[in-house]
């Protein structure tokens, strides 16, 4: 029912073909529908290999009001689907008050997009980038729920010398049947969690606009402490702390954009009922380039590499267990074309040449670690 309400509201506003703007109040929205098709393995929690899937969309609608010189409040509803994730449940994507005390200090409270890396805060906004799928080494869909938003308080500002900072503290979301629960369960051979909770979460981001015009350097950190409970086969709690760091660089020169990021993500976990105390060390990085050819055409490419354990890049641990070594990595060479039909409509077509089986569902009888995926997406925004 909720999704119909959201769709109806969206259509009502979209038909005006322009954002509603009453001086201090603005309403904006976006609607994306995509298609994914892979040749062998299933990716992104969806059945992409058989006939492909249309379970790949996002709808968002927001209202923001500049109450006075210092205070702005707003809320965005988001409905998304990516295979088993989201299923078009309508949820509050962000809803916060923003008190801008000075240029060097602003305070936020509520549910905010988590500052992390170059693109985490804008990861759901397809129309704001060249590629359809962001490099998964940093912007994994599996970890999305826990790193997408923070509920709590935040501070931000512009410091002398071109330094921009953002920091948030509070809690985050963790679903027992999605994303990180599936990843952790899959890596440890546990299926089915019945409950989840997050004790605390934080994130910090620094960006420096260097004296060289167009060159931005950045670094981010993020962490949270959480637990997942299972009653299968007996009751136990999986307690874990995640901590990650990113180094970022972006260079914009005319119509050319170059970007690269490197991330280390460590997850320390314990299952006291089974005397388990271990950790996972994810590592990933990518190189990205995009070029705007004219008003309606942009092309882009990236090469993305990720390892589920930075100390076992060859997958020896998996081989010992009789599993494919390729579960230890995923290397993704992507090519994208973006067509701007007009200011409100974008169509994209993207191909992925994959090597590896990390965070992928594959045929255990005949694992194929060299595979392909096609993505197409159309987005309307106003």
């Amino acid at each position: 029912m909720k999704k119909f309400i959201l769709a109806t509201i969206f259509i009502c506003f979209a038909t005006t073909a322009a954002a509603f703007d009453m001086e201090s109040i603005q309403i904006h929205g976006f609607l994306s529908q995509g298609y994914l098709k892979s040749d062998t393995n299933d990716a992104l929690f969806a059945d992409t290999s058989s006939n492909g899937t249309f379970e790949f969309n996002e709808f968002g609608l927001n209202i923001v009001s500049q109450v006075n010189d210092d205070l702005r409040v707003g809320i965005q509803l988001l409905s998304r689907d990516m295979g088993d994730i989201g299923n078009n449940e309508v949820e509050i994507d962000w809803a916060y008050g923003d008190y801008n005390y000075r240029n060097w200090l602003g305070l936020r409270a509520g549910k905010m997009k988590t500052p992390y890396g170059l693109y985490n805060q804008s990861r759901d906004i397809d129309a704001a980038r060249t590629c359809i799928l962001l490099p998964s080494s940093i912007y994994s869909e599996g970890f999305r729920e826990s790193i997408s938003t923070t509920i709590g308080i935040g501070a931000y500002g512009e410091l002398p010398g071109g330094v921009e900072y953002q920091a948030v503290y509070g809690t985050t979301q963790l679903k027992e049947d999605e994303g990180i629960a599936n990843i952790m369960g899959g890596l440890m051979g546990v299926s089915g969690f019945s409950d989840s909770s997050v004790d605390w979460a934080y994130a910090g981001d620094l960006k420096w606009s260097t004296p060289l015009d167009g060159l931005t350097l950045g670094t981010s950190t993020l962490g949270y402490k959480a637990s997942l409970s299972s009653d299968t086969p007996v009751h136990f709690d999986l307690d874990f702390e995640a901590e990650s760091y990113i180094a970022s660089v972006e260079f914009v020169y005319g119509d050319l954009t170059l970007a690269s990021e490197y991330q280390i993500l460590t997850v320390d976990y314990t299952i006291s009922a089974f005397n388990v105390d271990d950790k996972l060390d994810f590592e990933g990085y990518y190189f990205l380039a995009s070029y705007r050819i004219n008003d309606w055409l942009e092309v882009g490419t990236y090469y993305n590499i990720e390892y589920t354990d930075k100390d076992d890049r060859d997958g020896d641990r998996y081989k010992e267990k009789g599993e494919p070594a390729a579960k230890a990595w995923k290397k993704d060479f992507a090519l994208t074309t973006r067509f701007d039909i007009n200011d409100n409509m974008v169509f994209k077509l993207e191909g992925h040449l994959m090597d590896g089986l990390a965070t992928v569902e594959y045929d255990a009888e005949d694992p194929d670690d060299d595979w392909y995926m096609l993505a197409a997406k159309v987005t309307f925004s106003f």
Partner: protein
Amino acid sequence: MKKIAICFIIVMALFVGIASADTVIICNPGVQETEIPPKELQKIFLGKMTKWSDNSRINIVVLKDPDQHKLFLKSYIHRTYSQWKSHWKKMVFTGKGVKPKQFDDTGAYLAYIASTPGTVGYIDAGLAKDTVKILNVK
């Protein structure tokens, strides 16, 4: 070699001067600033700097005319039109800013800037009127 370098710098300076001279930055007469550094102007129009020196709110307005808007972006903000659109989509859909108001009509645009405290925009140098203040960018 040195002479060639000096000539090159002079030509480039003239070129930049000509490109920027066609468009001037204008604001409400109540804005205290009379000049503004180029980097700060970029931050203002990208929504990263939202307060004037007296801590009043900066209100950005732009023209819909694509030629004038693109010339302004190239001359002062060092962004292409598509980069500008993408940037403001990110701001709007993360709640970090309200999209700059756009005007079709130059007369209404100038009247709005003249009557709305804290407002800043740009215009062809030949169309600037006494009702608005010109901000020197240096």
